[in-house]
């Protein structure tokens, strides 16, 4: 299938991502921040879709937007919002922050300037229909070991969480 108005959607989605990123750190109300974060994640999922990575997009929605952000909201709701609203939002380390941001920006510019030869001019279009199957084969074939280690790590985390929660009860 032929993509429609690719550039337009790319700028729309990236703009949304950037805007919600800014909103996340500037909103005083934590729930509003979380909401902005969700929009950012959804816009990112859209970007993945444009990169012909539907599986990653789906996982992004199901895990981040649908799962993790719900837990985030849960926690935020249980936090005393009144107090957090009174607190100062930015601390005095703005100089360090500015430096870090400047360094990151410089890095991007440097990569863009120097690395032009590193990236292909046009992206090779992968076959969209078999993308998901390929991910599966890679995960359970070539990267089996890494995948299993990651799942083991998650299992440890789950057990740790249960142990910590149990102790308090």
């Amino acid at each position, binding site marked *: *299938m*032929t993509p*429609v108005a690719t550039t337009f959607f790319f700028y729309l989605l990236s703009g949304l991502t950037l805007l919600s990123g800014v909103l996340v750190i500037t909103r005083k*109300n934590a*729930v*509003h921040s979380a*909401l902005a974060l*969700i929009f950012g994640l959804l816009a990112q999922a859209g970007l993945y879709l444009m990169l012909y990575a*539907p*599986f990653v*997009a*789906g*996982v992004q*929605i*199901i895990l981040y*937007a*649908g*799962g993790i*952000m*719900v837990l985030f*909201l*849960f926690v935020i*709701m249980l936090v005393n919002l009144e107090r957090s609203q009174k607190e100062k939002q930015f601390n005095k380390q703005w100089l360090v922050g500015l430096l870090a941001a400047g360094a990151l920006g410089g890095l991007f510019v440097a990569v863009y300037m120097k690395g032009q030869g590193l990236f292909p001019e046009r992206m090779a279009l992968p076959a*969209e*229909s*078999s*993308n*998901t*199957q390929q991910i599966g084969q890679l995960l359970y074939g070539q990267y089996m070991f890494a995948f299993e280690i990651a799942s083991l790590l998650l299992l440890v985390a789950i057990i740790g969480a249960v142990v910590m929660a149990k102790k308090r009860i």
Partner: protein
Amino acid sequence: MLDYITSYLGMNTTPGQAGNVFWVTVYILIVFGGVSVAVMAMNWLERKALAHFQIRLGPMRVGPHGLLQPIADAIKLFTKEDIIPAEADKFVFWIAPLIILCASFTVYIVIPFGPTHAITDVNIGILFMLGVSSLSVLGVVMAGWASNSHYPLIGSLRSSAQMISYEVAMGMAVVSAILMTSLNKSGTGTLSMIGIVQAQAEQQTWFLFKFFPLGLIAFVIFAIAMVAETNRAPFDLPEAESELTAGFHTEYSGLRWSLFMLGEYAAMIAVSSIAVTLWLGGWMRPFPNWLAGETWDLVFSLVPGFSFLGLALIAFIGVIRMPKHSYFRIQTIGLAGFGAVLGLIGLILFVPPVRDRIQDIFWFVAKVAVFMYLYIWYRATFPRYRFDQLMKVGWKVLLPVAIGVLILTAVVGVIF
């Protein structure tokens, strides 16, 4: 331009895959309009069926047998005063119903009403459906929080905990069905909704009966989890009116409240569609192997027309039984007109080209309708679970069984 429009008609694929923006728009309008009408019809049907379960008549005043009641309700809700509590977080309060509505309507993009009757077919169809429908939890949580009141908050906490818990069991059941799609010659399965139905056609069985009773168990788990997922009786704790008045939408009124209801019913239809697609052969007609052959194909293709004629007949019986009184004259005429329309639709469905194109949709909708009826039936029969019992059922019964079925399906699939 005209060529662009007509070029799709010859293609044997969904408009989304053909990349035809015009037909995609048309399909979206048809599907969303159809879903909205279905929600209204479901609303009427639920009230009527529930009333007859409970030896009442249900709505009888607005239109013949209350047929226009949903429209009257809609007008009432739209014109009602829109109340936002003073202490509510206005922005979140405003956006919560929209999130639920968007989440439950977006999933219709990939629902296959027929081999080509879908807005589009995505490679990750089922994953997309589960993911997007899980976004409605956000709406629930935010609605409860934004109301800034105890009952909605508890309702939304309950609701989100419940939806997250049952999503796990639901996902496991879905995965075991997806495993079955890979039992073809190439050995690769698919997540595409159309691909899943085609896999069932290829293997000449509904996944419900595949590896009996494994498919059946997975289906039952999904059928239970989907009721919990949509917050319906007997899992309607978030809205338990005897405990939490109305749960997360206690503070909502008028249009916003109706958006919640629209979202809920749309979600019910959507999850039922998943169940139909995954286990009940999607758009395929019943008994494709057992009653195979040209004649049976013809017989089954006549069923849609006859069922509409049957509905028309019921409407006409209603006309005859209508009291002969001047007060009821308009109602009688209206019912007769309704019957005539149904009959006309039935007759149109006998025309061979229409018949061939429509019968997929008919069988799909008929299967979904069975689930809709089950929803009403549950509501009339069961008391409500308590929260801890609900969690117990979800985590201690459904999830282990679902994992067991998944493992067994994989093992059996490899051996046979």
